[in-house]
């Protein structure tokens, strides 16, 4: 694997120093040589050939007008026939060896095209041209995908080996902006992007602890909406309201935030009209981008929100272009409604059922919960309704004191509760039989990202040999990996830590002390060896099975 990556990177470097379109003659010779000699191309050359094929396709499509769908529809059978033909050849060979057999077949088709477009490509492309190219390529890919759905038989062979190489492709990732605050270039780029989208930039507040200088730190007293003009033409009012609710903590908790986001997007879609000469599928996605930047500025997006947004964008771009606006809008609204229903509400019901039926909550249990997790509260209320006899210990922590909300909900139902602060956890744990924790996200390396303090509770529970169960819906699983709580986190308003005790407020003038910093972390990661079980709607899995679930989900989609 290491070999392939170094070769690929070397190949990429060689590509980057050459201009597009100058390959034509030299490459053709090589291909002819390989074809005639019949030897296997080296991995390097296979990579190069694959990249060349992509670029040739790009230059070919640049010539077509994006309005002329018919040409592309015609091209569909051509491009799908080409890979289909070599697919009929021995399909047992891995894709590596398929590439050289596929390329010579398409090379004679694409080489004359590249020759023709060669001299035209030599001058540097303008941004608009590149954009048009990209758009055309995307449309072609989408169209070919739709055609592939029709040709199931032959596509089965080409789609199956597709899965493994995607895992082994070199990762070309762009680091998210919100963890590169200490890089002035990234900040400049962000400022420019926000200016273009007409969204005010939120400024960092207060002295940041040096370990966290790569993260944003905002003050709750200075919300983004103060800098917005009224009426705001760029941002939909439902989104402005949502952003304000996020930044003030009125809507908190990953499920609540995702559901609120999806409802706001439903409102946006209802109020949306396609401008003339624009396509709904593309324009709506572009309309959503400034909204997402705005919400990100109000409060960094959570993993669940990120997954929801990805889903919406995919659904929007999958709308066929011949669909009427009303139809498209109602379809999107239905999609969002079904996403909320399936992934959040029904998943919660399934998890509660699973937990109760599999005797994870039995009579006489003393259950410890931390903070306010909507899913865990739901499970406990359901279990209480099914007449299980148990009592609950709610652990809370400053400065958010979310446990009070959980306590209120449970006591209303009639469950007998005890309330302690997190510093008393080692005092109360000898009485506890099980610990139920909620999660904000489950990372691909099995770590659980949750409210700060969760890892501490898991640690102390492990020390007392009390089982720890994490309850999490699958839409919160994300591809990221993280091993500590520093590299990617959220810093809340540091003024929240200030408190008055016995008439004095020692931290009142903390800004004036140059060597004093306040740290108000929001999340932390729990290592998988502290967690005994994860309950999801797919069943009960160990922490380390998260990448398996992600892979299964990706293949389904």
């Amino acid at each position, binding site marked *: 694997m290491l070999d392939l990556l170094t070769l690929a990177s070397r190949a990429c470097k060689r590509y980057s120093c050459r201009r597009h379109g100058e390959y034509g003659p030299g490459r053709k010779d090589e291909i002819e040589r390989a074809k005639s000699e019949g030897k296997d191309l080296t991995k390097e050359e296979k990579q190069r050939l694959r990249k060349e094929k992509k670029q040739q396709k790009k230059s070919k499509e640049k010539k077509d007008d994006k309005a002329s769908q018919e040409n592309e529809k015609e091209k569909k059978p051509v491009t799908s026939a080409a890979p289909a033909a070599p697919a009929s050849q021995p399909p047992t060979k891995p894709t590596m060896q398929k590439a050289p057999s596929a390329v010579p077949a398409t090379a004679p088709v694409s080489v004359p095209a590249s020759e023709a477009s060669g001299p035209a490509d030599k001058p540097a492309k303008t941004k608009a041209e590149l954009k048009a190219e990209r758009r055309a390529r995307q449309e072609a890919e989408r169209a070919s995908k739709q055609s592939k759905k029709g040709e199931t038989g032959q596509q089965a062979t080409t789609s199956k080996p597709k899965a493994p190489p995607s895992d082994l492709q070199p990762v070309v990732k762009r680091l998210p902006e919100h963890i590169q605050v200490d890089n002035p270039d990234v900040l400049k780029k962000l400022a420019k992007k926000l200016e273009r989208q007409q969204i005010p930039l939120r400024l960092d507040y207060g002295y940041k602890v040096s370990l966290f200088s790569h993260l944003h730190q905002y003050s709750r007293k200075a919300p983004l909406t103060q800098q917005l003009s009224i009426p705001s033409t760029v941002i939909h009012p439902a989104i402005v309201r949502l952003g304000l609710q996020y930044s003030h903590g009125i809507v908190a908790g990953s499920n609540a935030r995702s559901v609120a986001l999806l409802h706001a997007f439903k409102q946006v879609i209802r109020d949306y009209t396609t401008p003339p000469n624009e396509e709904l599928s593309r324009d709506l996605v572009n309309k959503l981008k400034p909204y997402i930047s705005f919400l990100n500025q109000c409060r960094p997006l959570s993993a669940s929100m990120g997954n929801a947004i990805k889903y919406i964008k995919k659904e929007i771009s999958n709308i066929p272009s011949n669909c009427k606006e009303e139809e498209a809008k109602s379809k999107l609204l239905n999609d969002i409604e079904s996403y909320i229903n399936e992934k959040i509400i029904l998943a919660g019901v399934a998890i509660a059922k699973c937990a109760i039926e599999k005797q994870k909550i039995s009579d006489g249990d003393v259950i410890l919960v931390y903070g306010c997790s909507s899913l865990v509260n739901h499970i406990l209320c359901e279990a209480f309704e099914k007449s299980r006899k148990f009592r609950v210990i709610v652990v809370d922590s*400053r400065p958010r004191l979310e446990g009070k909300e959980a306590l209120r909900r449970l006591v209303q139902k009639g469950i007998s*509760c005890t309330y302690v602060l*997190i510093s008393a956890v*080692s005092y109360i744990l000898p009485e506890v039989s099980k610990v139920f924790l909620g999660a904000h996200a489950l990372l691909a390396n099995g770590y659980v990202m949750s409210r700060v303090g969760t890892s501490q509770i898991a640690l102390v529970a492990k020390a007392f040999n009390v089982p720890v169960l994490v309850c999490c819906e699958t839409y919160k699983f994300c591809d990221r990996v993280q091993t500590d709580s520093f590299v990617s986190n959220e810093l809340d308003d540091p003024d929240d830590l200030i408190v008055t005790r*016995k008439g004095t407020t*020692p931290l009142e003038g903390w800004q004036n002390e140059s*060597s004093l*910093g306040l740290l108000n972390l929001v999340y932390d990661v729990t290592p998988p060896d502290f967690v005994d079980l994860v309950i999801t709607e797919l069943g009960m899995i160990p922490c380390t099975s998260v990448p398996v679930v992600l892979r299964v989900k990706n293949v389904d989609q």
Partner: protein
Amino acid sequence: MPGPYKETDLTERVEAFLSDLKRGGTGAGPLRGSAETARETTALLRKITAQARWGSAGDLMEIIRKEGRRMTAAQPSETTVGNMIRRVLKIIREEYARSRGSSEEADQESLHKLLTSGGLSEENFRQHFPPLKANVIEAINELLTELEGTTDNIAMQALEHIHSNEVIMTIGRSRTVEAFLKDAARKRKFHVIVAECAPFCQGHEMATNLSKAGIETTVITDAAIFAVMSRVNKVIIGTQTVLANGGLRAINGTHTLALAAKHHSTPLIVCAPMFKLSPQVRDYSKVRILSKVNVHCPVFDYVPPELITLFISNIGGHAPSYIYRLMSELYHPEDHEL
């Protein structure tokens, strides 16, 4: 002879001290530091020795034991009071033994001696020695000077344990640790993270004091202790009491801190002067109950000795396994129960 006046004056002093103790420990944290309490107790005991009417060492010990029982009953969580009383009782025994001229068998080195040392215990301290009073008062004065210097003695050892660019974590407020860190900060540059220790949040005061001394300080919530522990080099804490098995009775949240340090293999150093050493082994907590919901608010945590790396006291550094030996040097086994 100002006997009666002295008597009433003495009882007044004792009553004032008792009410102070009762007031000081009503759940809002000690009104004064342990060192203060220790000093006041010892001063009071010196006064009792000087002014009370007693004939022999046995009488004096009875008086002190009686007063001592009242004092510990007034505030059971303030163990320094009981410790000082035991120290004074040991002083009296030693002085008596010296006056009698018998060899210093106070240090019972071997098990054999322990079992066969019936000698002193049969003695009921009835003999009268005129210079005993003066000797005892002199010894108590020595104890007082020792008490006054404890914080400085501990702070002097700071540079041996803190190097440059370290990240040190502490919890709550301890005057000993404050002095320790301030002393090291004179010569070394390091970073301190203070866990605020809800609900009383004494960590805030500690942080402001440290930052005024020019130390880079960060305040974190209790929930973030494990999250930041991976970047911490040492954990230095104070304690309310050091127990006979080497464990601690320390402020709420210390056990979690110790577990997190153990998980990351970070050394846990406890700065505790010798007067905090107590022969008890039980742990103690406070409980308050409100209507439908039980609310627990323990004030102290028990930390087992396996989680502790080092004790720094005014007489040097020790491992937790050595504490029991120090116990036998400071207190006489018969005084363990007052």
